[in-house]
């Protein structure tokens, strides 16, 4: 059973890394990380902060681009190109297909994150003169956030076209990063309905700010490992929710 998920995952990974989009994003990532070494010295006394900030933010943005640009089309194109026919005709459960797609895209993003982390750690080493393990905490939570966004993109890919899926995922990304602030604003200045809406958004949608410990790490503020574990579990919970919904919808789908 796991074999089938892995086979689909492997195929998805292969398709992603052989595609031009991934190559372009990968090259862009290397340039971005490299540029931090150039920009760093220009910011007087802030070189170390700039290198880390640019590196972590770049990782998050580029990972998000892969999750959205590949993820929102990942199931849709299988149906559109009819490659799904021969997979469905094999002894593969539909949830295995969804899980395999998730695994494959995650592996792709993982490779990107690992590559960029190596460059980031190297650049940070040069700037601050020692290895900073806290950076790995920020990288881990960035990766968990990207997992949540990947599962959300796959859900979108099951229910709508890639363009709509990308728009919705982007909106949910924005809301996910601002729902806490929006709720605070609504509590102070908003109407009753605004409070309800922001409360619903805050409690139902994933709060992506939980995964953002970048500024703490950059400023060497200690982040408790219990918090890291909580954030990981929180992220995995949303992955399970999004993938379960995607699987349930996909289970009922027919392919004309």
């Amino acid at each position, binding site marked *: 059973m796991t074999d089938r998920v892995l086979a689909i995952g492997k195929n998805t990974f292969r398709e992603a890394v052989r595609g031009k989009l991934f190559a372009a994003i990968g090259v862009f990532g290397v340039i971005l990380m490299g540029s931090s070494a150039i920009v760093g010295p220009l910011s007087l006394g802030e070189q170390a902060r700039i290198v880390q900030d640019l590196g972590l933010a770049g990782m998050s943005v580029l990972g998000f681009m892969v999750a959205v640009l590949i993820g929102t089309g990942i199931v849709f194109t299988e149906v559109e190109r009819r490659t799904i*026919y021969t997979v469905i*005709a094999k*002894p593969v459960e539909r949830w295995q297909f969804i899980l395999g797609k998730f695994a494959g895209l995650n592996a792709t993003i993982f490779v990107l994150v690992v590559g960029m982390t190596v460059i980031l750690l190297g650049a940070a080493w040069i700037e601050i003169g020692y290895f900073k393990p806290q950076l790995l905490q920020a990288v881990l939570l960035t990766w968990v956030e990207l997992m949540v966004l990947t599962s959300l993109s796959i859900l979108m890919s099951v229910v709508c076209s890639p363009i709509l899926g990308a728009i919705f995922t982007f909106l949910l990304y924005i809301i996910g990063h601002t729902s806490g602030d929006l709720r605070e604003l609504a509590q102070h200045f908003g109407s009753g309905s605004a409070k309800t809406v922001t409360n619903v958004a805050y409690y139902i949608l994933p709060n992506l700010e939980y995964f953002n410990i970048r500024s703490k790490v950059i400023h060497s503020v200690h982040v408790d490992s219990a918090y890291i574990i909580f954030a990981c579990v929180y992220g995995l919970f949303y992955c399970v929710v999004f993938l379960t919904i995607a699987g349930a919808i996909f289970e009922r789908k027919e392919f004309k």
Partner: protein
Amino acid sequence: MPILEFKDVSKVLKSGFLRRPVYRLGPLNLEVEAGEIFGYLGPNGAGKTTSIKVAMGILRADSGEVRFFGESARGAAVKHRVGFLPERPYFYQHLTAFELLDFYGELFGIPGRKRRERAMNLLDMTGLAEFANTRLAKFSKGMLQRAGFAQALINDPDVVLLDEPLSGLDPTGRRQIRDLILGLRAGGKTVFFSSHILQDVEMICDRVGILLGGELLRAATMEDVLSETLSWVEISVEDLEYEAIRRLGLGRVEEKAGKTVIRLGPEEDTGEAIKTISGLGGKVSSVVPQRQTLEDYFMRNVAPGKAEEAGQACPADPAGTAREPALTAEASAALSRSAKRKRSAEKVGMGN
């Protein structure tokens, strides 16, 4: 026990915002026996691809059930024994032919070494061995069809469902696939395939099913179907003037390659005709009984609009009898439904 069974299978395809029904299949009842090659025929929009998709779980039947080996086709387990080639196969363009087969082998849970061996054997069998490491993006339509055929066999299935396996192939490719299908039967496999290429169906099928307007018009052995079709006898005559033969009033008389040829209908007495010709001093150089083909049967019973053209293109019909309106009321009604559904099917982008 039938290998494949459609039991009261119905399917309505809907389209548009209001989910209006645009196509109806069935209720379809059909059985395919072990070890036979079953040809599934019908005009565009008849429901061939739809019923195959229902069998493979790509579409779900609204009612009824498809069974493989007596078990419901819905379970994933039964698919271990089934191979499938979709119409106009689209495969992962980023994979090489070998990787494609390896991937599908993994989906069947075939162990690594066995999977790779089988993949290479199938590539060899389909004539793609030298392209094993070529990406499918570079394959021609015919090569993709052969790769599709290979993937349908990766699990060494007991029954293979092939949707239009011969379309898009050149004569050599068609011959190769025909031979492969015959080889499968020789190996004890069951083959169920839809096709528009009636000559191929006639050449290799044991039984045929004709689908029209979503309903099964006929399922019978090839022998039964062909024995019902009109036959005629072609007599070549020498040493007798064309006009003299024509005056005898024996069937249709024509000049062909310097010889006078008489075509007698099945109701006419061939022996009597030969005697008459000999009596006038003519020499009969050959007597060839002609049998109509599956295509003739199909054109007469399924596509009356095309039968006119077929009749004109087939001078072998002695008195135009083959062009008789042999369409039954049932076939006629089904054809009318079929035409409507074809138009609807085109709207929803269906195959077949």
